[in-house]
């Protein structure tokens, strides 16, 4: 697989990604053992199970999948003397647009994940675990299966692991292209062989009524890998990395209009948005200007570049004071991103420059969520499709005056009214885009482009001809015939934001 970056950036602190792009590194167990692999598992097996849980609690590790829930607290919900079997599931269904960190762990360092998982299984006393990997990683699934077989052969998995008396089996389970399987209860339904309709909480908290109605822990790939490092350095020591309540390292995935997109493992909160984009990613592409950032996967609320954000900060005397900062000064941690009205989510940062039209961007996002709604709850099933239809219509030049208001009202009627968090995931983009880029939505909220089909070379969006801009049509009829690209690709046109 082609890698993005050969050398880690000096601002990085590579722990989870230590072996990603490492010269001479291979995915086999001997390479891993030669580098101190499985030592932390051996160490954990000498500790008591509650002690392992306590170390993770002390570390302050927060889930890296999207919600940022404290991992140790989640584990604490499991009663280890449960009369029912306990299961652990690794959520490797990485599918939040903009996120691509687990891909590299799975493809380049599978044993780190296996070790982290076996330690975690031991901690919560799970004897059977599954890695639910997205269907579009066929290669990754094979690599993991090989890694599991190697681990089994060397006594790190299976019966009586390293003579400790602890038995644990892990299997790989492939998904089949449905985003909703990343939602933990949807994932559990899927693993039970059903449609992945998320379950309602309460009562179906996985730690109580999870897989096969038994206590179940679902953790993200990156989270499980951190467990290994917490055992290595101790929870208290780990907690010193990063910021209070935002501990450890975090892998940020940057895509979009930057010079050098890629992944960067940094101490949580140690870099600001500006440093990430300008220093680590080499700045904006083609010398363009930053317009907007989606900081935590496509469902995170968009941040506008020219806005001021209010945060609370401790000053030198330790007193909390209000502070106003620009987008580039936002530190990339869980709490600050929440304070500025978005979220750290899955770590997927999507950057947009000033050539991007925000209605078109939202239209793309809405296509995604309309496609991925599982259809169980009415507000989401109907609403995601309704929003998709409106933005589709707007980008094809058939906007109507009331569109921005209708978009907002539909989104407002989804968020908070569904069984799972998909409702928020699909409503937040619309709510934030319409509110923050009102002028662009108003501009598209009218029939200001003559509908015209261009049959040659026209990009179809969702089966409809995408209408080209008036000046392009004019150029075409003058014999120039510029081939209109997809609406997202109007980047060389300085007027693209206006139509």
């Amino acid at each position, binding site marked *: 697989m082609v890698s993005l970056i050969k050398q880690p950036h000096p601002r990085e602190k590579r722990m989870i990604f230590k072996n990603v792009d490492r010269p001479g590194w291979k995915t086999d167990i001997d390479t891993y053992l030669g580098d101190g692999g499985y030592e932390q598992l051996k160490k954990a097996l000498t500790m008591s199970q509650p002690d392992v849980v306590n170390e993770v609690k002390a570390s302050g590790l927060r889930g890296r999948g999207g919600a940022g829930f404290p991992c140790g607290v989640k584990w604490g919900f499991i009663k280890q003397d449960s009369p029912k079997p306990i299961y652990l599931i690794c959520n490797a269904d990485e*599918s939040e647009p903009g996120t691509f960190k687990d891909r590299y762990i799975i493809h380049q360092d599978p044993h780190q994940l296996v070790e982290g998982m076996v330690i975690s299984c031991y901690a919560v006393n799970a004897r059977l675990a599954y890695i639910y990997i997205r269907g579009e990683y066929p290669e990754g699934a094979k690599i993991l299966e090989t890694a599991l077989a190697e681990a089994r052969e060397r006594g790190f998995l299976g019966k009586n692991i390293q003579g400790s008396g602890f038995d644990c089996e892990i*299997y790989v*389970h492939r998904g089949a292209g449905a985003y909703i399987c990343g939602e933990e209860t949807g994932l559990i339904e899927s693993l039970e*062989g059903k449609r992945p309709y998320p379950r309602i909480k309460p009562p179906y908290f996985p730690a109580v009524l999870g897989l096969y109605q038994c206590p179940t822990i679902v953790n993200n790939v990156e989270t499980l890998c951190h467990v290994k490092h917490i055992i290595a350095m101790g929870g208290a020591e780990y907690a010193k990395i990063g910021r209070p309540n935002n501990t450890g390292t975090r892998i940020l995935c940057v895509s979009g209009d930057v010079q050098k*997109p890629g992944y960067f493992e940094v101490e949580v909160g140690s870099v600001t948005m500006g440093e990430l984009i300008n220093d680590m990613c080499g700045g904006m592409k083609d010398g363009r200007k930053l317009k907007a950032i989606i900081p935590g996967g496509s469902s995170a609320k968009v941040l506008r570049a020219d806005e001021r954000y209010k945060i609370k900060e401790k000053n030198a005397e330790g007193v909390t004071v209000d502070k106003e900062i620009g987008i580039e000064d936002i530190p990339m941690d869980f709490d600050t991103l929440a304070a500025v009205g978005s979220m750290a989510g899955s770590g997927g940062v999507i950057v947009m420059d000033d050539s991007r039209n925000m209605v078109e961007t939202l239209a793309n996002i809405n296509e995604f969520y309309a496609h991925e709604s599982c259809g169980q709850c009415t507000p989401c099933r109907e609403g995601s499709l309704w929003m998709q239809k409106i933005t589709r219509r707007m980008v094809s030049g058939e906007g109507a005056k009331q569109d921005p208001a209708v978009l907002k009202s539909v989104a407002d009627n989804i968020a908070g009214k569904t069984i799972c968090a998909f409702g928020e995931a699909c409503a937040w983009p619309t709510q934030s885009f319409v509110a923050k880029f009102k002028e662009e939505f108003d501009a598209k909220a009218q029939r200001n482009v003559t509908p015209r089909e261009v049959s040659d070379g026209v990009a179809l969006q969702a089966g409809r001809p995408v209408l080209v801009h008036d000046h392009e049509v004019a150029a075409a009829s003058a014999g120039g015939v510029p081939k209109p690209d997809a609406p*997202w690709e109007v980047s060389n046109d300085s007027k693209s934001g206006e139509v």
Partner: protein
Amino acid sequence: MDIPAELEQKIDETITHYPVSKRSAVLPLLHLLQEHLGYISSETADWVAKKLDLQPINVLEIVTFYPMFRAAPPGRHHIRVCRTLSCAMAGSYKLLNDLCEMAHIERPQHAGHGTPFTVGEDGKFSIEFVECLASCGTAPVCMVNDDFYEGVNKEAAAEILQKYQ
């Protein structure tokens, strides 16, 4: 239905991964069978249902929900192009058009449900517009069968097609 002994063995082994409920094996079984047969016919779904002591509807509802399962045969090589935001910003709509043009396939209408892929007349390639393949940093990306390609421009796309002739 003709299932080679080796495949059936693999299927039986896979079922053992789910000691609590055989029903859990429905996704892996459908993957194995689709790999072998190219798609899931109603006959195949019935076979899976029998194998797992399920009603046929329990399998059909899976086939119709998960986008990766196909209810109709694809081309000999199946291409998936990522449609989602980062790839779209890097030109994936154009990539899809280029691939369709070069492989002489009608452009799939991204309807999202059912089987939104198109197959070329010679049956060599089929093409599908899919959602985020989780490699947004190397956009635009696509897959051919199980092989993954990153940063695909028009020249690279032409080379890729050449490779699977």
